[in-house]
């Protein structure tokens, strides 16, 4: 999904991070954890800073990696929308962005995982963003 791009830390003054999706078990399929380690150089960066992406709405998201003693890092991941500090979320835009982020992730994880299969699953369960 070319609509999602990794970006440097955006200007965060006047914003807040709004938690929109949580994953407690990023390594359930280890290739997913490997994708984030590779994409954000986590073996070097560790917990020192989140990863940032920009999604189709133009909104930036902070990917906050979570460590758990005794498990490979990162064990979990929180996706936070970076929004104007005192403004409510546009939940529809967030949902579409999250779907795009999932597609970007699946595309990056690679075979046997495919974006086409993600979309097929989304359509089966009638996810609006899946079309």
């Amino acid at each position, binding site marked *: 999904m070319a609509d999602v791009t990794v970006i440097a830390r955006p200007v965060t003054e006047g914003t807040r991070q709004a938690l929109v999706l949580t994953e407690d078990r990023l390594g359930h*399929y280890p290739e997913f954890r490997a994708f984030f380690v590779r994409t954000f150089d986590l073996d070097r960066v560790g917990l020192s800073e989140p990863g940032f992406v920009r999604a189709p709405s133009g909104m930036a998201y902070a990917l906050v990696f979570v460590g758990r003693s005794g498990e490979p890092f990162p064990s979990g991941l929180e996706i936070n929308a970076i929004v104007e500090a005192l403004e409510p979320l546009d939940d529809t835009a967030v949902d579409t962005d999250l779907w795009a982020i999932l597609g970007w992730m699946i595309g990056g994880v690679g075979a046997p995982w495919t974006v086409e299969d993600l979309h097929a699953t989304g359509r089966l369960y009638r996810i609006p963003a899946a079309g």
Partner: protein
Amino acid sequence: MTVSALENIDGFRDKWPFAARYARVNGWRMHYVDEGAGDPILLLHGNPTWGFLYRDVIPPLVSAGYRVIVPDMIGFGLSEKPAREQAHSLDGHIANLTGLVRQLDLQRLMVVCHDWGGPTGLGFAMSNPDRVRALTVMSTWAWPTPPAEFHTRLVPWRMMHAPLVGPYLLGRHNVLARRGVYLSVVDRERFRREAQPVYEAVMPDAETRLLTWVWPRWIPLDDTARAQARFAWLEAELAKSRLPTLIIWGREDEVFDAATFAERFKRLLPHADGPHMVTGRHFLQEDSGREIAGLIAAFLDRQGGV
């Protein structure tokens, strides 16, 4: 959540007139219903349902002279719903059930198992055989990998609960209660009208749906899976068990198809009665609740009755 949150759903109380009871088990608040008097029957649901799945099964069994106990698994229904994935494990859920049975001091139990109510209920039964009189298995499994070809498929099964995808599809969009169950009943219009609003309402927010994507992750797909040893133990214990067992299966069940699963239970427990086929896909209680109750009551009658 309490039962009062569901009372604005049309006809809910007509379908679910049972008193809500709560017990503190294994550190969690568990909701259950306890109706009737006589030898006890424990009705166990799985993912993503709750005791409501048995609404048509309870009254006939009570009328037949049995005490019927229907707990909501911790994480589902009106029971406490832990907020973290790490709160859930197969062993922990078996311990939850064991805690309830011991608290109520249930003896001579018929344990009726469906979906994840199978590994938990059978795990309880195999570790507490002195409290159990008989078993019923319906659309479930009790052995290591792979449970079904369906569970090895990337679409939809593995994709549905993949990292981040699971919390999105099953958490934000509640697809198991909203669409998954609907696709796994025979009379979909009746289900949509009478039951779907209840299943959706009992999991109103993403956080309350956690177990819907955690349970799929506990299904062993290879030898390294977390629950592999527990399922191997379960299968070995069942193979030694002589408990009277009833097998009931949905004729239209495509996920846990009868030819694979009911027959495997029959090989594991050759003395079992059945499989008795009823109208139903995976959630066969939705289509054949009263017939299932009749089969259970008749089976217990053959074992000596109440």
